[in-house]
């Protein structure tokens, strides 16, 4: 497997956080297995605790908590293990979300989780991901575009108006952005320090 090395053009002199960050794809067994394992971790945290709390609070119309951990683990997977691991993480979570019934709109995760890692992988190629604000920069397009398929899903499942579905999605996006910026920065730094992803 080839590993591209070097500094990032946009951030002169700053080494990327992950040594695979300049690649888009990683097909080694470690990346594939890590993709699955992170998908299971995401499911256990979200379907076991957060999505149930969210659904009990909002009926599943928006996710004040689960969006944050979903975005965090999708960023971790995409950042360190690239594609297709990012897709595997997301789709593993989507599959389990459907069979555990954690939220009424879980089938829409299949589409969300296909888009989100692509944006994470592409944006993280031009950022070193060593500063907290780079996670904010990464998450804005990833959340806005990646979570957009939830709008028609919420609209159709809950028989809402388009305006209300859009507002609920903006609430999810805002909460996910705030939580994931903090969590993904802290966890990514811890992973890089521990070298468990190298």
């Amino acid at each position, binding site marked *: 497997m080839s590993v591209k090395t070097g500094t990032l053009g946009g951030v002169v002199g700053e080494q990327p956080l992950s040594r695979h960050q300049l690649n888009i794809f990683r*097909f*080694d*067994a*470690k990346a*594939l*297995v*890590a*993709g*699955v*394992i*992170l*998908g*299971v*971790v995401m*499911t*256990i*945290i979200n*379907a*076991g*605790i*957060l999505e*149930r*709390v969210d*659904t*009990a*609070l*909002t*009926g*599943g*119309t928006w996710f004040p*908590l689960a969006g944050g*951990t979903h975005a965090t*683990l999708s960023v*971790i997977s995409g950042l360190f293990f690239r594609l*297709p691991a990012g897709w*595997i993480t997301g789709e*593993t979570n989507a*599959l*389990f979300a*459907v*069979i*555990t*019934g*954690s*939220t*009424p709109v879980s*089938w829409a995760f299949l589409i969300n989780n296909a888009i989100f890692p692509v944006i994470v992988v592409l944006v993280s190629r031009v950022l070193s991901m060593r500063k907290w604000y780079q996670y904010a920069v990464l998450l804005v397009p990833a959340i806005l575009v990646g979570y957009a398929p939830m709008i028609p899903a919420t609209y159709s*499942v*809950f*028989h*809402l108006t388009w305006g*209300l579905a859009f507002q609920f999605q903006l609430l999810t996006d805002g909460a996910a952005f705030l939580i994931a910026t903090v*969590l993904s920065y*802290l*966890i990514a730094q*811890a*992973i890089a320090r*521990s070298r*468990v*992803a190298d």
Partner: protein
Amino acid sequence: MPVLTTYAYRDSFVFRFDPRVKVAWLGVMLLLSVTTGRPALLAAYLVLILSVAAVGGVAFSRLWPTARAMLSVAAVIVVIQLLLHPGPHPLLQVGAIRLYREGFPIGLEVALRIYCIVLASLLTFIWMDPTALTLLLLKLGLNYRYAMLVSLSLRTFPLLERELGKIYDSQQARGMELRGTLRKLIRLLPVMMPFVLRALRRSNEIAVSMELRGFGYKKERTWQRAIALRPTDRAALVVLAATTVTYAGVRLIRPQWFL
């Protein structure tokens, strides 16, 4: 409570079916649930799913944890629909919030549909041997490097759940109060951080052991087991196909029966 009820073989004809029959059954149930809007029919589908589960050797107690967890979801869905569909028949008024009777059938429809989708999916995965699922994906043309990942996820799920339990216990032993959902939410980071790191360490170990056994060394690999359709599987597939065609015909000719 475990998040997922996993596969455990029982000597029943449903467990012996080819995975294609189980997937086809799931497909038919999803089609029926998604294209029907009448609550009475959705309730009938739900009864059908539970009956098939009982006949197929899955006790209701195995489905109950998921069904119980979804009760609160269903209740909130119904309340939201009562709130969002104003009409001439108010049901209840609390301050400025008014609930309307018009939203009840919609709420019931959504809740029953979700129950049907979730229980049918869960039942299929209780019936589905992870190895058989891998073999099915291989038959569908997926590369074995990816097909194996599905069964890997099903097998590692209970292991990682136990790992999370151990992390909770360790943090509590260090004096962190983690009883109750609210406390677990507030102290998510001290639990999530070691959980992710331990999971990644485990994934390293799994990947290394897979590579040592030759994972990815050759483009093709051999399998100890194979899946093949038996006469009973073919008969079940014919019944499911006939059901789908009949349903599609009636749905097209008499759409009002389903809405």
